[in-house]
């Protein structure tokens, strides 16, 4: 039932999905003009969702993972790319967000980045996209590290090109934290390699289950687990390791913020889920070390403390950045509860949050494009001047609160069911309570934007151009649509959760 016919390229789709953006990045360095590089990137990024959807459909149809052997070397010896329900789903999310931003990017980049850097900016965008897709698709622990660094290094550049000088500092701080995180990850992988002698995820999980019988090996394995979880928690900005994130998002150029908010943390979350559940399995990550308990406490802290920070923030981009930390908390909460329903909620929230948060940041990018600021004082009354932009912002904001009828509700619903299944009724209460805080911070900016007299900056603003409005409304529309039709998110998530949980309990 494959919707698209790829002909002879069909068996090579897993590698093409990663190599297409990387080739796009290479060729765009030769095109010295920003417009040309953008056109190339547009073609490249639009092809990626088609590929990942084909992969997803194929995996759902057969129920078997797709394995692609690089250089035709067999699994434990060569690097394999493995697409199962979970990774195909996350690939779809990342490639979709990567594609939807690009039509918007042309004007935003032209306004915020100087011409000689524009084609390099596109290069970095494509490299980052290729790296993120690579993290998700690869079946090899070290290969995942390489892709993690490809995406991180290009992310640092994307952030540093922001107009304010604090963008440099934010990028520097992220570089330090991100590198520590990635290095922790390879320390963990190194220890696993010492214990098992393999780097392939499937092979690792098999060998670990026998290797841990030896007490020395068991200690090394648990140390590895600790290193990997902490390293990836830094990357995915789990509270309290999120300090790099608010400034990085606040001072990066609009396109970079929207892209990173939708994708970067999601790829790290995927990798954490993959390692904790598929490689270590419950025997180690739940019984030997209380990883879920730890994640549970931290994600609850994120949901509340980061939300509180968002309430008192006066910079709209930073407010949303804190909200991202809180939303990562929701996803990790679902992961920590580790049952079928909560995992479904967490995975569904990966897509839902990516869509909503990207829409919100795109709306702010449009405001920045018109008035050159996203401070509340400058944004007051902007809703009257840019009604379409701010209406989309409001819809996505309502989704973020988890109001019924939006996609945010679906994921929180599953999270709540998961908490009930786990017997933690207080967690259900906390999910609701933390949603109420998001009502406050979204309500506060809504009040500023719609019910105040226009500021001097806002008074002269015009509605955002069509090329910005279309991606924005596409995402805002999806926020509502996915609140009613859950086939794309929750149903696929449930299947992916089956694989993760099925192997465990």
């Amino acid at each position, binding site marked *: 039932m494959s919707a698209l016919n790829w002909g002879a390229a069909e068996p*090579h789709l897993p590698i093409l999905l990663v*190599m297409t953006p990387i080739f796009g990045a*290479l*060729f765009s*360095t*030769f095109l010295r003009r920003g417009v040309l590089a953008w056109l190339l990137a547009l073609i490249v990024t639009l092809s990626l969702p088609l590929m990942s959807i084909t992969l997803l459909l194929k995996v759902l149809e057969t129920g078997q993972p797709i394995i692609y052997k*690089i*250089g*035709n070397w067999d699994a434990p010896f060569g690097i394999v790319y493995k697409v199962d329900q979970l990774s195909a789903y996350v690939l779809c999310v990342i490639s979709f967000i990567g594609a939807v931003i690009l039509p918007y990017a042309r004007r935003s980049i032209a306004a915020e980045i100087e011409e000689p850097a524009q084609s390099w900016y596109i290069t970095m965008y494509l490299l980052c996209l290729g790296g993120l897709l690579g993290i998700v698709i690869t079946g090899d622990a070290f290969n995942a590290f390489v892709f993690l660094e490809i995406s991180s290094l290009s992310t640092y550049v994307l952030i540093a090109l922001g107009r304010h000088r604090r963008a440099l500092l934010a990028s520097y701080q992220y570089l330090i934290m991100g590198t520590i995180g990635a290095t922790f990850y390879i320390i963990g992988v190194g220890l696993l390699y010492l214990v098992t002698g393999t780097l392939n995820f499937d092979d690792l999980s098999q060998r670990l289950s026998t290797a841990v019988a030896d007490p020395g090996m068991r200690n090394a394995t648990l140390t590895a687990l600790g290193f990997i979880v902490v390293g990836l928690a830094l990357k995915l900005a789990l509270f309290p390791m999120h300090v790099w994130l608010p400034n990085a998002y606040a001072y990066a150029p609009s396109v970079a913020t929207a892209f990173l908010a939708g994708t970067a943390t999601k790829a790290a979350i995927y990798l954490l889920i993959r390692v904790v559940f598929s490689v270590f399995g419950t025997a180690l990550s739940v019984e030997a070390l209380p990883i879920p308990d730890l994640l549970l406490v931290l994600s609850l802290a994120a949901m509340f403390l980061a939300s509180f920070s968002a309430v008192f923030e006066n910079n709209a981009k930073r407010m949303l950045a804190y909200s991202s930390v809180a939303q990562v908390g929701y996803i990790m909460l679902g992961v920590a509860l580790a049952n079928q329903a909560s995992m479904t909620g967490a995975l569904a929230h990966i897509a839902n949050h990516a869509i909503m948060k990207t829409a919100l940041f795109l709306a702010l990018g449009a405001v920045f494009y018109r008035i050159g600021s996203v401070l509340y004082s400058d944004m007051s009354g902007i809703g009257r001047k840019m009604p379409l932009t701010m209406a989309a912002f409001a819809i996505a904001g309502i989704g973020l609160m988890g109001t019924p009828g939006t996609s945010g509700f679906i994921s929180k619903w599953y999270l709540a069911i998961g908490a009930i299944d786990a017997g933690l009724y207080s967690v259900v209460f906390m999910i609701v309570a933390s949603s109420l805080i998001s009502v406050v911070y979204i309500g506060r900016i809504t009040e500023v934007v719609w019910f105040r007299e226009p500021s001097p900056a806002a008074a002269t603003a015009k509605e955002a151009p069509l090329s910005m409005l279309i991606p924005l409304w596409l995402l805002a529309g999806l926020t509502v649509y996915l609140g009613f039709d859950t086939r794309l998110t929750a149903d696929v998530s449930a299947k992916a959760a089956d694989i993760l949980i099925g192997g465990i309990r």
Partner: protein
Amino acid sequence: MRFDLILRVGAKLVLPFILLFALYVQFHGDYGPGGGFQAGVIAAGMVILYALIFGIRAAKQIAPPAIVEMMVPLGVLLYAGTGMAGIFLGDNFLEYTAFAHDFLHAHEWGIFTVELGVLITVCSTMIVMFYAFVERGRS
């Protein structure tokens, strides 16, 4: 340092051998320790030594920044292109089997082109980084 005769003559004597050694490390990589990364750094070291002694302007004449900048993606393109060639010849990505009549020869060719790509990229990246840091704060 511009008038330091011994340094200038000494450098001129050493420079070609540095490049030769880089090429040795590159092409002898099949039989001994070596390969594109090491050779690329050594070759870039030659340009950097030249720049240190004869000045950045002279170095830019033997290694023009525009060309060096083009070489960075070119090397990666050669590497990735070798991978794609495998696909076009009906095998998997980065599979070299179809490059020659037998398995060993095919792999020799595959690894040769990949290492050439690595050499180009590593060498040019090192030079670009050197140029970028040296230029800063001058203008």
